[in-house]
């Protein structure tokens, strides 16, 4: 990506520190957890940046900080030329038309008391878009786009499987015609056969609507299937950032190497070689990983 357009999203030196408190009546801050510790990257319009890391690496926190769902401690999040960190609630609410999120767990992220139609249409209501009738039509179209039967708008989420629920979540994220969607582990709760359906859907939507994705996941193969560029996070820091092909074939950072070598691949012959490689790396890395 060497074009001179200004990026759609620019994150600069982002920090999020959580205080560690002690004491019952008189709480004092005894320490800090640096969940995100100086992260910078850019995403061009129409591109997918994959953000990978293990649990606790700070990848989801980074996503939430971009959307201002949690306030970053410091740093800048610049979206389409506008700084998001200083915005108040009302201004941010307006910006959310452009930035949406798809969550990991489609069982927890959909309100069980709302119908499918209400869930998908809610963003339109919140932003006062369209009449009741035109909204109903929009909802039907959105559900159709994500491959969910539009005649089920009056049903409730519990009636559907994980894959179908994730389609509802995606339709909702699309409702306001956003530019950027943060996908936070969108397929990790799904079975392989269903996971492939959702990944293909996300690819199709990107092609059809020119969407930009920040694709956060722990599964390195899934991220590779989706991303133009890859950012690897470890303990709050970006340890590697580059074109997907390069990061996967010639990883520079030791942590990235260890991470890649640890993935079991569905090929028993290749697995024998990878196991040997993994052991060799583990010995070489014993010192760096232990610190």
């Amino acid at each position, binding site marked *: 990506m060497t074009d001179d357009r200004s990026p759609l999203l620019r994150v600069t030196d982002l920090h999020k520190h959580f205080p560690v408190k002690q004491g019952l009546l008189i709480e004092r801050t005894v320490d800090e957890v640096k969940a995100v510790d100086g992260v910078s990257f850019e995403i061009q319009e129409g591109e997918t940046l994959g953000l990978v890391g293990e649990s606790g690496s700070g990848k989801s926190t980074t996503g939430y900080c971009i959307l201002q769902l949690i306030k970053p401690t410091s740093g800048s999040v610049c979206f389409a030329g506008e700084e998001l960190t200083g915005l108040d609630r009302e201004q941010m609410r307006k910006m959310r038309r452009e930035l949406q999120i798809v969550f990991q767990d489609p069982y927890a992220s959909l309100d069980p008391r709302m119908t499918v139609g209400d869930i998908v249409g809610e963003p339109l209501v919140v932003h006062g878009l369209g009449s009741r009738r035109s909204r109903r039509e929009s909802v039907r179209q959105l559900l159709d786009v994500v491959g969910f039967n539009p005649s089920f708008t009056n049903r409730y989420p519990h009636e559907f499987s994980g*894959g179908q629920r994730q389609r509802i979540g995606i339709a909702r994220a699309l409702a306001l015609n956003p530019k950027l969607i943060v996908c936070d582990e969108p397929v990790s709760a799904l079975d*392989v*056969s269903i996971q*492939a359906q959702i990944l293909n859907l996300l*690819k199709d939507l990107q092609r059809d609507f020119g969407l930009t994705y920040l694709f956060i996941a722990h599964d390195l193969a899934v991220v590779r299937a989706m991303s*133009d560029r890859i950012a690897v996070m470890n303990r709050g820091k970006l340890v590697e950032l580059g074109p997907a092909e390069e990061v996967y074939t010639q990883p520079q950072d030791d942590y990235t190497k260890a991470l890649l*070598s640890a993935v*079991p*691949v569905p090929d028993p012959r*290749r697995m024998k070689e990878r196991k040997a490689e993994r052991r060799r790396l583990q010995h070489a890395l014993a010192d760096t990983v232990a610190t």
Partner: protein
Amino acid sequence: MALLEVNDLHTHFFTREGVVRAVDGVSFSVERGKTLGIVGESGCGKSVTALSIMGLIPQPPARIVEGSVMFEGRDLVRLPERELEDVRGNEISMIFQDPMTCLNPTLRIGTQITETVRRHQGLSRQDARRRAVELLEQVRIPNAAGRLDDYPHRYSGGMRQRVMIAMALSCTPKLLIADEPTTALDVTVQAQVLDLLEELRREYQMAMIIITHDMGVVAEAADEIVVMYAGQIVEQADVLELFDHPEHPYTEALLGALPQLEGEGIREGRLTAIPGRPPDLIQLPPACRFAPRCRYANRHDACAQGVPELRELRPGHFVRSGHPASERAGARAEVTA
């Protein structure tokens, strides 16, 4: 004689909505010192199969309605609970997906390990404690003696799974059943746990059943693989044979649906998704259970007429399908010739 022989196992759940045929005629055997991998997606019956072997299915609602589980000449299904307790944890052990829910959060790690060895091996309190330290060292818990009196919450996920492995191995079982042992773990920790299991399995000359949804994990760990779908075995073969020549359309589709870690043009490509979802296990049609999602089946062929038999296509390679890959290729070759 195989160490474990499961014959025509049927485990059904009797619910208000109807009878759920979770395991519906499963047969396989595990040889001494070998690892069998059972793969499948959620609801295919892989875990219920394991729990049935261990006699741990919740009854009611579940019941083994048919079949036998022969372990060294004894049928575990018909063994009295008292005798089963002597087998369980002693000769067959099991580890589970989520090591946090399997450890009692209110008991010290040491207490939980010594419990097992005292019950099965009748060790004294002191000897049991010594044995516990030994076991923790074996699964490479640093400063084992010092950590014996910690509570489970002081251990990380990977360390908890090591504790579970230590407990499972405490009585040197002949068979270890590992149900999604690394699913809750990060990939680098998963690699360490798989390496550890492999090493210990060799050292103890133990047989293992590893149950997982992850084709990569079985490619790494298993000698023989069973693929399950909707309560039945749909394909079974030696690990190299299965990955070199997958026969069942479901196995092929499952491999095609997996994103690849290595290769070219991955970003541009599409995954071959399997349309639809697995059938309702209460209302199973008298037909091939994969047929509605199968790209080769149609309404007029044998797939719609009855459940295909599990047949031996090549020595040791079993398939339950009317359209295995080799027969399709053969048919195509004939047409072109």
